[in-house]
């Protein structure tokens, strides 16, 4: 299991190196004042990466333990929450989305409902006032909510 991960990584990296090299070759350069040009550096890196990746395939190193299925699902849930947070961030405004995101993250990290909601509410409102008013950072306020404030 351990060995497979690093070998797989090695193969992926060689693929990446090939991709980098092909993309570099396809660059269209109108003209360049320096003799090196924009292609050489990425090409060199691709060769270096491919060489290092080959070493990895021949002589794999150690990895940390991979998460099991249960944990894997949870990790995906956390990522999904962050993604939804991002998707709604400008549409609903900072306060509402942060309330939702904080509450659900707190739940996933083991807080009971009450505490999670309380954390969500407090953190969303306090951080909004801290950032927007005390530090003058412009945050999406969610225009629709403004008349209510």
């Amino acid at each position: 299991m351990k060995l497979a991960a690093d070998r797989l990584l090695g193969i992926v990296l060689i693929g990446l190196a090939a991709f980098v090299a092909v993309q570099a070759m396809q660059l269209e350069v109108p003209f360049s004042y320096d003799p090196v040009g924009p292609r050489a550096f990425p090409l060199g890196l691709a060769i270096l990466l491919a060489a290092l990746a080959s070493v990895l395939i021949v002589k794999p190193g150690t990895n940390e333990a991979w998460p099991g299925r249960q944990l894997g699902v949870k990790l995906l849930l956390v990522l999904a929450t962050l993604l939804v947070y991002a998707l709604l961030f400008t549409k609903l405004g900072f306060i509402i989305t942060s309330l939702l995101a904080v509450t659900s993250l707190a739940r996933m990290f083991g807080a009971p409902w009450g505490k999670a909601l309380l954390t969500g509410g407090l953190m969303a409102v306090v951080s909004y006032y801290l950032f927007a008013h005390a530090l003058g950072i412009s945050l999406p306020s969610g225009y629709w909510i403004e008349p209510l404030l």
Partner: protein
Amino acid sequence: MFDFLIHGFDVALSPLNLGLAFLGALLGTLFGALPGIGPINGIAILMPLAYTLGLPAESALILLAAIYTGAEYGGRMSSILLNVPGDAGAVMTTLDGHPLAKKGLAGPALGLSAVSSFVGATIAIIGLTLFAPLLAEVAVMFGPAEFFALMVFAFASMSVMMGKDPVKTAIGAVLGVLIGTVGVDSSTGVLRYTFGLPELYDGIDFVVMIIGLFAISEILLMLEHANRKDGNEGLPPLGRVFVSLKEVMACKWTMGRSGLIGFIIGILPGTGASVAGAVSYTTEKRLSDKNNTFGTGDMRGLAAPEAANNASAAGSFVPMLTLGIPGSGTTAVLLGALMLYNITPGPMMFSERPEVAGGLIASLYIGNLVLLALNLPLAGVFARVLTIPRWVLVPGIAILAFVGVYQLHSNLAAIYLMLIIGVFGYLLRKLGFSLAPVILGYVLGGLMEQNLRRALSISGGDLGILWQSGISLGLWIAAVALLVLPWLLPKLWQARTSKA
């Protein structure tokens, strides 16, 4: 000769300016502690405030300088406590700072970093006071060829970090350099690896990179720790709160050396706190890591980058004050602030506006004292962050990450990119990679390529330019020595002892 400084202390010690130095130090610490919101943003956001308040020039500058130094202090907090660097200069601080916190020594770690920051900054400010005009002359001697040699030296010095898995360290650095090539090629204007997305034209932003790589992946790792069945909840209870004098004294030479390195690197236009932190850390590891404890929570591994990044912040004032050339993004913003007050920095500033030049330097001395006084006693309070339950801490990190990226980009694409880089960082960490080489490759790789190509366009393709000057030749020799000596010296030693 130092009339301007005496005059400057007069100015800086007035109640208004002293108050502003305090306020700036506090606000700066706060800005620096928030991941992604570093000194540049702090100053850019507060500059209009200083202007609207109608503060006189020297007061405004004192406020802004205090914010700058405060942010350099604050950047270390999340590095130590959460393993998330607060800004560019604090990346290396995570290497030994966070392991210390994991050992239950968060308080002493914060205290020590405050002391090293103070020592580093003080060395640099003294250097600034005594030698500024002279150093400015040296700084402009660094052309593209010299910068290229410096980058080669920096990469060579990274070899010491190869540690337990040299192949993965090298792969990490190469991946970092590759990430740095995304965006407009700064010489020909050709777009590289942007796939038609305008969001990628300027390359992958540093803030997006560190927040994604460190903060988002940290959230995912925390989830794993929280779900571990073996009852290991990760962090031990908080031990003692204050750093001991003995611990500080054990690091005194580390601080001195690193402060000097940081100052010198800070003076050079275009290299910043991140390079200073990296070079000082690797130098210190090479010089004093006899038992291979760096990276596992060695106090010296924390003191080195902390002294260096604060020293480089002060060092970057040299080209700004003496030549009017901003050496870093932050000093560029400060320069803008000076222009707003109709002050043009340069050698003339010391004679024409002594209250500004002197006041600024004096306020750097005072600001650092204020910061030390503020940060030492508060170390215990800040260390309590670690006792906050995960279900509060994680959403907090998430909010900070989002705000940090959003305020810089006003753009969701940057947030998506941050999440993608976060997953990438998580995978790297699970695969046994260290993140520091990735970041260093990303920072140094671009500088290396650009300066190589600049040098060769100046020489018309003649490679000789790369080692023509004494400075670059010296750096090349040093780089080769770094790579060869650790391998050669033991052999020579052996040969000698066997002969005897």
